[in-house]
């Protein structure tokens, strides 16, 4: 599998950086509950990346999750407060597997922001469904604060529920990562339209999400490394740039090594989930590997960023803490590294079962 960036991806990256740099969202939560509507509009409508994985016949770009991973990487680097993961990756994947076309077309033309109504971490909640109306609660849902449509799994099926419709209440949560706000969702007899069976769609969405979240973590880690290196070159203590001190050098070299590895792993995961079938062992293995590796890499890069900035890194004003919070929350969301290692154990036939000693 090719783990490099293609020319198309490089040019997409340039466009994204131009846009995100101009929006200067890095490190600041969006105006409306942590969501930056204008950046999202520019990404979805102007740049068309919301529909990157939507087939061309539905108005999308007909690209694969591999290109979407590149978007995730840049969104991580700029910490853009937009629901790309929830809408353009996870919901779009779930819709594709569940056999929907209408909502996919609306994602592609930017007319609908769609969110999967599952907790950002942990197991899905139970929603009751009867006569086409849904009732229940889902806690800590990501990317739903600005959603127009919620995809709700209930009774084995996936339902479309209007986010602003009757019987739907979204309550903002005080999120550790303010740039990816969570909501608690309460449904009381909310009308839903059945889309298709849920289990395969949810599993595929989760695999796609885990695989591509690694690219976001890569972007976060790269920002942290680049920012720390730049600071270490210009911050003088004891008459020298602190980056000339050997202990600092060696720690940054170690971060660089782990980031170089994260890049290979994230690219591999993006490639492994870019085919049609996400239920096979290799996409699942690649996604688990990606989360087992890249989550901790981003956390460590962000921790070193805070530490090596010293006092200033501990302040609210410096953006380092926002990357720290993003890194930590993504290392828990969609499963901790330890949970993904346990998943790998199953896929690799390396069982835990203790022996006699």
């Amino acid at each position: 599998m090719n783990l490099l960036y293609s020319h198309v991806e490089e040019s997409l990256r340039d466009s994204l950086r131009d846009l995100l740099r101009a929006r200067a969202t890095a490190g600041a939560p969006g105006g409306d509950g942590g969501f930056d509507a204008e950046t999202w509009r520019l990404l979805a409508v102007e740049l068309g990346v919301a529909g990157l994985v939507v087939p061309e016949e539905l108005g999308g770009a007909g690209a694969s999750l591999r290109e979407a991973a590149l978007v995730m990487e840049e969104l991580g680097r700029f910490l853009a407060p937009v629901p790309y993961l929830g809408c353009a990756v996870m919901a779009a994947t779930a819709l594709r597997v569940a056999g929907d076309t209408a909502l996919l077309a609306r994602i592609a033309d930017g007319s609908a922001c769609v969110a999967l109504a599952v907790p950002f971490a942990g197991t899905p909640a139970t929603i009751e469904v009867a006569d086409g109306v849904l009732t229940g609660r889902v806690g800590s849902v990501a990317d739903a604060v600005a959603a127009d449509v919620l995809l709700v799994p209930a009774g084995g099926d996936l339902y479309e529920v209007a986010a602003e419709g009757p019987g739907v209440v979204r309550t903002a949560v005080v999120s550790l990562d303010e740039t990816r706000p969570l909501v608690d969702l309460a449904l009381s007899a909310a009308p839903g339209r059945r889309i298709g069976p849920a289990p395969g769609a949810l599993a595929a969405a989760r695999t796609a999400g885990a695989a591509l979240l690694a690219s976001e973590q890569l972007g976060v880690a790269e920002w942290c490394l680049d920012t720390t290196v730049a600071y270490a070159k210009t911050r003088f203590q004891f008459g020298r740039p602190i980056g000339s001190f050997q202990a600092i050098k060696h720690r940054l070299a170690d971060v660089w090594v782990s980031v170089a590895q994260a890049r290979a792993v994230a690219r591999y995961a993006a490639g492994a989930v870019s085919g049609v079938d996400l239920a096979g062992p290799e996409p699942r293995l690649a996604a688990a590997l990606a989360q087992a590796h890249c989550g901790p890499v981003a956390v460590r890069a962000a921790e070193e960023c805070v530490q090596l900035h010293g006092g200033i890194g501990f302040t609210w004003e410096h953006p380092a803490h926002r990357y720290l919070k993003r890194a930590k929350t993504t290392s828990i969301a969609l499963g901790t590294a330890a949970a993904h290692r346990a998943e790998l154990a199953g896929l690799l036939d390396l069982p835990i079962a203790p022996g006699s000693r």
Partner: protein
Amino acid sequence: MTDVRALTREFLASAPPVDDPLAFLRARFDAGLAWVHYPAGLGGLGLPREQQAIVDEELAGTPANDPRRIAIGLGMAAPTILRHGTDEQRRRFLRPLWTGEEVWCQLFSEPGAGSDLAGLATRAVRDGDGWRITGQKVWTSMAHLARWAILLARTDPDLPKHQGLTYFVCDMTAPGVEVRPLRQLTGEAEFNEVFLTDVHLPDGLRLGAVGDGWAVARTTLMNERVSIGGTPLPREGGLIGVLAALWRDRPDVRTAAAHDEMLRLWVAAEAARLTGVRARQQLAAGEPGPEGSAVKLAFAELAQRITGLELELRGADGLRHDDWTMRRGEVVDFEGRSPTYRWLRAKGTSIEGGTSEILRTIIAERVLGLPAEPRTDTTVPWRELPR
């Protein structure tokens, strides 16, 4: 030999009523029972430090000063004033410092002088019979409540950096002193920035000779380091207790993979705790060792790892904070607050009071005797240093 217990009982018999705490504390100071190892007339009796325990035992339950309000005064300002102050300065400052009537803060660190404190840029220029101070200080706890500050400023930028410093007491009510809250990644403002703009200080507020600031500051810093290390904890005291309790109370958060990690942290925490116990025994035996630095280094790393694992165990709950409202930080309470608060606050433990990097260098050079790096910043005039 002075019978401290008898003295204390005598004092108690004639002490002001305990419902007037300030009068009581002042009288206790005047009786020499504030800190018995201080000289007579300055709140003490010139006795060995250990005897304070007897006084404290006898006076248990009587009015006490607020440890938070007097922490910086007690731990840093007082020993410095005692050692380097004039008689007049000692008489003026020590009593209200100890009673808590006057809160103190410390104006040392600057945005450009963190680990390299001796590189600081705040200028003190002769101004008539006093000094004019201009500069910016940072990471100042209690500045918004303080009456006085200990202040390190540069009086001669043409000397090498350690030689051009002078130590002052800064009047925090003087014109030109501006205190602004400094918000941390927890959302709170525990600390302050302090802007000094043409602040006039009379020469009587200078502590030690002009140019002796670094030597005076070493007294302050040595006392800071001793005061860190905290109180002895029982097994599973502190953050590891929080994690262990979570594990015991919430079977739903347990995973096989986290089990060994949790036990590693338990072992590391108990090892660090026993190291602290041993360090205190050495101190008590009159053989103070360098293990205090080991305790601080280990505490910082443990605090970060334990709180990080806790968030992972809590899953979705670990993604939620309690409150981002900007508040004046109160006491740092690792155990009582939300899991996200303690995870965030723990990031400061390897930065404040000497970064872990500086501590490692100190251990390597002072404990292990490893040679210093070639230095380029100690012999040239401060003015010429790159920054």
